[in-house]
């Protein structure tokens, strides 16, 4: 039966099978080729060969711009941090010893009645960890300002999306001979959408490593270690000590910025005492001449307190140690940058006794 169907022919012997197959084949092939042609036509008319590849290359260029900005921002931030670090005497804000005329004090000596007028010296010398923390904090604040500026004003866009820098970094201050080096590892990547037609995203971490001269941490340790030698010195003695410092290390130039000696005193009761009190003037005839009237003062004896007053010179000596390096700093940030020398400023305070006195007081 099958064979009969397959071999079917009309009565005149014509075979319909082949033309039917051919016509069906024409339609099928035509459909396939038309579909291919339509796709080729779109490709040909747009001729957008390499569109996606170029977008990737341009995205990589944008990423390079971001990295260059971060490197420059890190360098400027490090310069600003080094300047402020030195200006503030290696402390981010004031010390527990206080501040005098803009110089953070590294020693403070006080004498008061609570201590029986015995001078008490409070040391506030910075340690290495203080210095590292101070430099780190100043740097982080400065870098954050630059990044905020970029995010607000740069206008850098990739595929219509604004590029935003992350502000969270892990910083490491590394010891390098003669230089201050800082490394920043970004905690978040900058994601740049490479193309519009697929979900490809180019992630980069804007890490950096920047360094400047000099090594402000080593300089700080040097200054902090030598500063106790300046305590309790007269002004002329200080000059000779500073000269010896300058000859020991020519890279650091020590200067006495100011030497102030406002008076101070402390009083305390040390004993009981007697003193004349309730005095009255008494008139009486003079022994030599009864006709004349003489006077005398009759006083009672009262018990009082013997007060000792110790006088001091409350010495404030301010020092500035320059390393000969200058940076263009905007201080405050709204003013045009000026060339500022990096100097390590600090002050010392102590009391020099100038005299003692006692007085019996009611």
């Amino acid at each position, binding site marked *: 039966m*099958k*064979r009969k169907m*397959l*071999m079917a022919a009309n009565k005149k012997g014509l075979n319909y099978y*082949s033309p039917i*197959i*051919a016509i069906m*084949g*024409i339609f099928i*092939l*035509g459909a396939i*080729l038309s579909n291919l*042609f339509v796709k*080729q*036509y779109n490709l*040909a*008319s*747009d*001729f*957008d*060969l*390499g569109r996606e590849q*170029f977008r990737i*290359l*341009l995205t990589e*260029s944008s990423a*390079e*711009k971001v990295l*260059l*900005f971060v*490197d*420059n*921002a890190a*360098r*400027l931030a490090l*310069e*600003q941090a080094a300047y402020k670090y030195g200006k503030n005497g290696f402390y981010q804000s004031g010390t527990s010893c206080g501040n005098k005329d803009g110089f953070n004090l590294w020693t403070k000596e006080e004498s008061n009645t609570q201590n029986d007028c015995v001078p008490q010296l409070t040391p506030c010398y910075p340690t290495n960890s203080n210095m590292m923390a101070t430099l780190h904090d100043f740097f982080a604040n400065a870098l954050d*300002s*630059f990044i905020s*500026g*970029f995010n607000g*004003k*740069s*206008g*850098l*866009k990739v595929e219509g999306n604004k590029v935003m820098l992350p502000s969270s970094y892990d910083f490491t201050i590394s010891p390098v001979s003669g230089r201050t080096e800082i490394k920043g590892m970004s905690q978040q990547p900058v994601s740049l959408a490479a193309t519009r037609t697929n979900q490809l995203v180019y992630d980069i971490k804007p890490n950096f490593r920047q360094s*400047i*001269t000099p090594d402000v941490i080593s300089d700080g340790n040097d200054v902090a270690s030598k500063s106790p030698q300046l305590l309790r010195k007269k002004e002329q003695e200080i000059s000779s000590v500073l000269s010896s410092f300058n000859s020991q290390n020519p890279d650091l130039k020590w200067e006495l910025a100011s030497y102030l000696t406002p008076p101070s005193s402390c009083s305390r009761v040390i004993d009981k005492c007697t003193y004349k009190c309730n005095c009255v003037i008494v008139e009486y005839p003079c022994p030599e001449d009864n006709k004349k009237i003489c006077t005398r003062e009759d006083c009672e004896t009262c018990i009082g307190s013997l007060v000792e007053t110790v006088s001091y010179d409350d010495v404030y000596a301010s020092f500035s140690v320059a390393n000969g390096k*200058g*940076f*263009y*700093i*905007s201080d405050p*940030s*709204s*003013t*045009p*940058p*000026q*060339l500022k020398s990096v100097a390590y400023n600090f002050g010392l305070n102590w009391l020099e006794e100038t005299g003692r006195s006692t007085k019996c007081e009611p």
Partner: protein
Amino acid sequence: MKTANHFNKSKRGQFGFDLADIFSYIGYFIVVLIIIIILNIPSCLTGIDTKKADSKLQEKADSMALVSADTQIASYLRTQMPERTELFAKLDWLEQHKNFLRTSVVDPETGITLPAEVKLDVGQAKAFLNSHPDVYADKDYSGFISSLQAVYAAEKKEQNNVKMAFKAVTTALFIRGFSNGKKLDKNNDGYTYYLSPVSVDFQNSNPGESGRDSDYDLSVEILPGEMLPERTPVQSIQVIPLADLTLAKIRLTYHPERSSWLPQP
């Protein structure tokens, strides 16, 4: 007869086909395919818009040129400034070869390229650098630019000196020359020198937008007339931070055709 027919029929395959049928079908399809292809060729020829294709190729060339420009400006900005001795030696070379430098401008009204004078006072630049060594010491080229901004903004009387220092230093660092094979005389030392236009804007509050030349505070270019291309060059813009928390825009104008016919290393 019946026997012959029967014999012919018996040669057919199980489903009624034989090899002759199969090959005839294949032949039909091939002929059909050829006909359809022939019919489509005219459509293929008329389907490609050559102008569109040209513009797309141009776009790709511009994209490639922009990538090259971005790379070039990045390499400029990361170039470490030489120390004083080397920098001044380069400036001295520039002073000696100043007469061989040629540039040009395009007349905006006529569109004709005219030769222009290279205004370069190396002595003025050196005097400025001597009095402001901190603008270039221990810095790269981008740091040099940001330091110049500090002087430019703070000292009005120094602005001309800053402009000249920028021109001289940029030229000394990045000028390139190639052998031109021309006769040597007082105006030609056998080399054609060029420098891609570099411009710096300190005052634009939105550095992401492209600016006009008049908006740029510092600029330098050395482009002899024969190097100006017919097509519009591409521009690459890089933003750098400044010490007062503003931004500076640095623009490099790149001529891809000029680079393509320069002698390759």
